[in-house]
């Protein structure tokens, strides 16, 4: 217990926990939209594809400034998305194959660039590799401010265009028939999701970022049937996991923050899928058992048509 109190007073811990919390919150909100649009895995693709951008930004500018590296990540993430879209549009290749191809090729390209950087004298590539697995402990106060600013911007857009996003995700054609510029809405939403992924790279890394996007939303979906509650819950779950993961990794020795956060949020998903009232598996199974019992005693048939 003393440990815990000691840790919570620790300055580094506060910084990292705050950063992880902000990340969890943003990815919870934007992840809800990604999941509802059935674009869960795009996050996986974009985050893998960000790697060459990170290294390229370093090669071109020589800076290890997180913000500059993330700008590179943003550019290559968007390029990958563009590639995927045009492959699907112009050939008969399906979305999932295009995604797998583009992300692995981009990732390979990133590795090539990394080994290239290794040879440049005076350049320590360790600072770049943190983007593969993420290293929350390298978060600086400056990085957290950056995340905070991005988060505020993203959330402002979500609040402003809430109605439009909701309509567009549910029924894009109807949105268009009402006169909304659906193409632009789609672009804006995609850009916001990509930005969220990029912000998370430093904390959880390219491989695990997709989980931060998907898991809070999937967990939140089980507890409610209202979109705004889902988004709030998702943000809450994301934020809790961020803090939980950071705390766990500070308390236990040699426990990396990113994976700890993912295990934490996955735990929430499992609990939600099993026990959420209404949708949860356990309740459904109990219900089915009761129903069977009921039918047996009443002698009814499951296929009685209802009028």
């Amino acid at each position, binding site marked *: 217990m003393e440990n815990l109190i000691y840790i919570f007073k620790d300055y580094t811990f506060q910084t990292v926990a705050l950063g992880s919390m902000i990340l969890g919150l943003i990815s919870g909100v934007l992840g809800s939209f990604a999941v509802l649009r059935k674009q869960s895995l795009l996050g996986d693709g974009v985050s893998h594809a960000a790697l060459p951008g990170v290294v390229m930004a370093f090669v071109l500018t020589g800076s290890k400034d997180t913000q500059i590296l993330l700008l590179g990540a943003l550019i290559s993430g968007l390029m990958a998305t563009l590639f995927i879209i045009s492959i699907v549009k112009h050939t008969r290749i399906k979305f999932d194959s295009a995604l797998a*191809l583009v992300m692995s090729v981009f990732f*390979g390209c990133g590795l090539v660039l990394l080994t290239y950087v290794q040879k440049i004298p005076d350049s320590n590539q360790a600072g770049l590799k943190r983007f593969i697995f993420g290293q929350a402990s390298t978060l600086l106060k400056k990085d957290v401010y950056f995340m905070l600013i991005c988060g505020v911007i993203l959330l402002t857009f979500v609040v402003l265009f809430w109605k439009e996003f909701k309509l567009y995700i549910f029924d894009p054609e109807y949105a268009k028939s009402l006169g909304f510029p659906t193409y632009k809405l789609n672009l804006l939403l995609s850009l916001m999701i990509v930005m969220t992924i990029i912000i998370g790279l430093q904390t959880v890394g390219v*491989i695990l970022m997709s989980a931060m*996007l998907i898991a809070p939303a999937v967990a939140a979906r089980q507890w409610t049937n209202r979109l705004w509650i889902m988004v709030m819950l998702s943000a809450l779950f994301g934020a809790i996991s961020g803090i939980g993961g950071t705390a766990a990794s500070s308390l236990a020795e040699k426990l990396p923050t990113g994976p700890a956060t993912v295990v934490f949020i996955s735990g929430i998903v499992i609990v939600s899928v099993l026990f959420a009232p209404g949708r949860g598996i356990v309740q459904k199974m109990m219900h089915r058992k009761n129903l069977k019992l009921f039918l047996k005693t009443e002698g009814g048939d499951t296929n009685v048509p209802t009028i």
Partner: protein
Amino acid sequence: MSPQFEIQLIAVIVAIACSLPGVFLVLRKMSMMSDSITHTILLGIVLAFFLTHDLSSPFLITGATLMGLITVWLTETLNRTRLLSEDASIGIVFPLLFSIAIILITRYAGSVHLDTDSVLLGELAFAPFNRMVIFGHDIGAKAIYSATVLLIINLAFIIIFFKELKVVTFDPMLAAVLGFSPSLIHYGLMMVVSLTTVGAFEAVGSVLVVAFMIGPPVTAYLLTDDLKRMLFLSGLIGAVNGISGYYLAAIFDVSISGSMAVMTGLVFLIVFITAPRRGLVSSLRRRNRQKLDFGKKTLLFHLYNHEGNENEIEEAGIHTLPIHFHWEQALIDKIIKILLKEGNITIENEVLKLTEQGRLKSRSDYESLFSE
């Protein structure tokens, strides 16, 4: 054999071995499942290692393959609850298993000579250091033999179950009716995919296995419709990617497996742009030609419809046509020019008139579309 040659040989064998099951993954729209498996086998390797404490134990392969199957099963079970969509299921399962693996490795890193870098990223350049020695004779790099065994297993699986795989891939309903169990073939394929990933990760790293599994089949998919030819082409493209990747790496002195992935992307890009029928260039060109052809027919038909009408001048006037059709001026000008050259129309007082030939052509176009 020189190490350089050995590396190329391994690259080619691994690339071919990966591309074969990849063909079925692409056709069955399961590409992302391979991405998932390539991550989760890490957990299988780690767990098996804890049991055996031996990095060269065959149980590592068993453990990893088993973990691949567990991944597939977990994903499908989660998906079957209908509480979340298929892609979300994939996105939940693999990060969790992968995270557990990373945590285990990091925590026990002192006692385990397993580091995440080598599993995820792999390095082909080190493969020749690990020798296969029988009765005191060095008979080549170990990886050559392991890759060859892998290739033989994959080839055997595909040759023996070709018919079943084909039916299950293109018509699962028919397969069930015929008495093949789609799920048996499905899990068989997933086992081969897991095994291939395990066999290949040492050489190329698990993330890039995806590039070798999906890249060549997707490229071949743009070149042929025939399943056998697609398998053959995928193998060939895989081999090309492997060798050219090696040379790229040699020239710039960079990661070999990374270069192979880059070449996979480049070869795909070239095929994507230039493929004879499905490529970007030919499909754009065909589309343009068809568009022109279609435009010609539509314009003739339009003139035919309004011939002799009271508003003919309005409907067929050179300047009013673009407004009526909502076509770009340039396109209309081009179509008019061609039609004039073909002798189907003439221009009188800035109004388009059908010639007798144009009238006949329009009528036959029309009749060929609507004749009963």
